[in-house]
């Protein structure tokens, strides 16, 4: 869009425009409402945005996602109104960002918070009605020893029925009418081809009524114990009998053969009095139990504490070591006596230019106990278990992170050093201060003013440095005796991943709860850190 016009609002009683619709005056109009080139560009862009929203709305309505549809509708109205109304125009810079914020940040946060209070995970995957339907289907079994019936799908005034040959006779039935023999039906090769009073459906028409046909159960006789005929492919019918019945009024499942009654429990499963649960269950709200599980489950609380401590140690030491090395190198290469500083500086940036997760992967290969470059070449065939020993793995993680992180600190410190006025340092030197004294009392405090906020954000970043841990050690070596697979180098965020996916047992609820705990921790640290920084600036 071109923005050559000014933002002056025009009064409502502006003079009538020229027949072409183009304004000739400059300065008395908003380009948002004039027939300028920019207007047409905007028209096209907004049209595309609106078209996409409407397409989204139609799709959302088709799959009955009312929430998404409502949001898109609101977005559509907002977009159209903001860009074409005079009063909404100031919001034009805000709106796209706001929409993306809603979708990618607030929605995700809200959804995580919601999941944290449910038992969403393996075995509790969907709604209760899905679970009921699926339990019934899974327990509806083919009557043992019953025959395969070549089956014909027929229709009478919109009612679907099945026609089969039983004991040499053609029989027809529908949902309400058990199979009964009909006269005058044509049978070809064991399959009914025509029934008087019913229309035989061809496959194309069957394809249009799939749900109806698949869900149809035609009672085999008036005795319900004989089972009912159903089909899954509209060509072969089988006799089925359900082992369970669902009583919607009492909200219970009953086993028809044993009479056992299964009732829903608070964890979202149908459970019998002796504690046997039917699968699948469904999602239910479980309150704060996901939040407390980490502390109350004795098998988890120990490793959790260890991981919590290690997370702080890892993040703290990462910042400290990278900052120390970065600062040291920055001071060294800031000294005019060093020759070829530019070359060295660019060389030092290299680890930073390489994608971090790839570096971690390369390091993983280099630290391999038997084939790794470090053991094989640098240590002359030593057998150091860099990544498989608990303590050494922690050291390796810190070393690799030092390699990855010091160039950033080097850059930051170089910049900050160069902004410190030389005359202050000069005057300190004149007063006879030693170089160390200058560094401790002058350079470092001045440096910290600009660098401290970056150290805090670096801490927060390393606190959640998932890709490094995942790519380098995968959290291993594992603890023994924990119910989820977590290990010595796991930090909180990689532990969340292990809880949610790692142990073959998915627990999204628990994982969400832990990630919320992490969010709170990181938030508190940053808040505390920035408060401290402010006092630093007041020095």
């Amino acid at each position: 869009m071109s923005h050559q016009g000014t933002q002056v609002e025009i009064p409502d009683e502006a003079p009538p425009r020229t027949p072409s619709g183009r304004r000739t005056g400059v300065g008395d109009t908003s380009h948002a409402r004039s027939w300028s080139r920019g207007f047409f560009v905007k028209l096209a862009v907004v049209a595309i945005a609106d078209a996409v929203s409407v397409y989204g709305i139609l799709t959302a309505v088709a799959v009955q996602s009312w929430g998404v549809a409502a949001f898109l509708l609101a977005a559509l109205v907002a977009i159209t109104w903001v860009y074409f109304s005079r009063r909404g125009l100031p919001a034009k810079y805000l709106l796209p960002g706001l929409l993306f914020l809603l979708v990618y940040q607030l929605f995700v946060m809200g959804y995580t918070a919601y999941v944290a209070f449910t038992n969403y995970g393996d075995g509790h995957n969907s709604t209760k009605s899905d679970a009921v339907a699926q339990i019934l289907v899974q327990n509806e079994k083919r009557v043992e020893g019953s025959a395969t019936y070549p089956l014909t799908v027929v229709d009478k005034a919109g009612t679907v029925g099945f026609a089969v040959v039983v004991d040499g006779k053609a029989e027809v039935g529908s949902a309400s009418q058990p199979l009964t023999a009909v006269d005058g039906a044509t049978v070809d090769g064991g399959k009914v081809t025509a029934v008087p009073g019913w229309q035989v459906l061809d496959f194309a028409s069957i394809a249009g009524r799939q749900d109806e046909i698949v869900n149809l159960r035609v009672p085999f006789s008036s005795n319900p114990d004989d089972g009912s005929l159903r089909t899954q492919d509209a060509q072969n019918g089988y006799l089925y009998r359900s082992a369970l019945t669902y009583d919607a009024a009492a909200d219970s499942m009953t086993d028809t053969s044993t009479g056992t009654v299964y009732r829903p429990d608070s964890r979202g499963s149908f459970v019998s009095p002796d504690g046997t649960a039917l699968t699948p269950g469904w999602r239910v709200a479980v309150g704060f139990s996901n939040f407390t599980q980490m502390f109350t489950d004795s098998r988890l609380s120990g490793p959790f504490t260890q991981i919590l401590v290690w997370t702080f140690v890892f993040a703290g030491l990462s910042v400290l070591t990278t900052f120390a090395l970065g600062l040291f190198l920055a001071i060294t290469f800031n000294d005019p006596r060093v020759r070829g500083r530019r070359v060295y500086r660019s060389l030092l940036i290299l680890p930073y230019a390489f994608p971090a997760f790839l570096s971690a992967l390369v390091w993983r290969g280099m630290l391999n106990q038997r084939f790794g470059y470090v053991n094989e070449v640098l240590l002359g065939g030593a057998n150091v278990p860099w990544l498989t020993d608990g303590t050494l793995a922690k050291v390796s993680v810190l070393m690799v992170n030092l390699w990855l992180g010091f160039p950033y600190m080097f850059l930051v410190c170089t910049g900050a050093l160069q902004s410190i006025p030389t005359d202050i340092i000069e005057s300190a030197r004149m007063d006879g201060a030693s170089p160390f004294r200058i560094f401790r009392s002058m350079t470092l405090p001045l440096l910290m003013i600009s660098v401290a906020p970056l150290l805090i954000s670096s801490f927060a970043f390393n606190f959640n440095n998932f890709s490094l841990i995942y790519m380098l050690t995968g959290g291993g070596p594992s603890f023994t005796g924990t119910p989820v697979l977590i290990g010595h180098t796991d930090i909180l965020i990689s532990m969340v991943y292990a809880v949610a996916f790692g142990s073959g047992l998915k627990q999204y609820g628990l994982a969400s709860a832990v990630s919320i705990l992490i969010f709170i921790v990181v938030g508190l640290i940053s808040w505390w850190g920035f408060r401290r920084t402010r006092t630093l600036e007041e020095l």
Partner: protein
Amino acid sequence: MRRSIPLAAIAGVTLALAACSGSGSGSGSTASATASAKPTLSGTLTMWVDETRIDSMKPIVDEFQQQTGVKVDLVQKVSGDIRTDFVSQVPTGQGPDVIIGAHDWTGEFVNNGVVATVQLGDKAKDFSKSAVSAFAYNGQQYGVPYAIENIALVRNNKLLQDTTAKTFDDLVTQAKTANTPFSVLIQQGDKGDAYHLYPLQTSFGAPVFKQKDDGSYTNEIGMSGDAGAKFAAYLQKLGKEKVLDASIDGDKAKQAFLDGKAPYIITGPWNTTAFTKAGMDISVLPIPSAGGQEAKPFVGVQGAFISAKSKNPLLAQEFVVNFLTTEKVQTELYKSGGRLPALTAAASKVDDKVLAGFNAAGSTGAPMPSIPEMGSVWSFWGTTEVQLINGQAADPAGAWTTMITNIQNAIATKK
């Protein structure tokens, strides 16, 4: 008059939308129920396939489309995600109609209620029995098999011509006569690989879960007790002797064998094509016993599942139950995939020395358990085995018992 600008804008937008929605709803409506001379179907099936199986599936779905007029949307998913995505997306209604996968996914799918039952009816007897029962759970059939695979001992005939070893220890001793850097390659990696160690484990009489007489698995762990402890000690021994090494993952093992750095490798048919393509002369043999009993590898079965919430249940059944089970399709899948067909008629026509070797090695094998409890086993199992091989777990029996406790806890948590 100025009001006309927003109006014009809205009108323009509406026009654009009308064009969009017009084309959108056209594809959504299904063919009306008018009887035509030739039964041509219209409809779309969505099918998820991972990168290892997609190439062999492509011609099959094209053929299905030509035969029935049903368009099949083949979506390639990453093999690491496909199973998780299926479980999480089916309940939302966004999942596919059909998913191609391994039989051991059955339990997890059933446990989450995302897979539909299928009825093979009389066709069941045309398949290898273990292939059909692999997809059965709790007396119900949930998938249709098309290929069988298992691991076996592969020999590089250039390095050793004859295998006389009766036990695994003998095999290692014999392999060392070839004077190569490695003796018998069994891939591990730092997370372990219980699958490739399973034949050794079963030879100690320690199956992962106890089996009923009909071959179906109970949820009672079978690898605890004395047999398990002996196997654990044996793993530690192999680790000390450097036969097993956690540093050798799948790629490294494959490459080492290709480079002629070992006379033997324990692997599956997915790697032998690379060996024969490289011009190697290989033989496929059964794995010798390490603990005195028969070494039984896991038999894996590939097949198709139907989503419990498929919007095209009939078309999906037509594809999976009636089309995928034909001899022609099973033979085509064998030719492109290189695995033994699950359909006996198609399998009997396979004339391939390598595949026959795998078939012989797998004839004693048991299908990999598909019960949902299996999901809680893999990671603990592999990790413990790696700790034994590395020598991190000083007391093998103790480490093995801890692993069993962990698995039992994980299974109990899931309930």
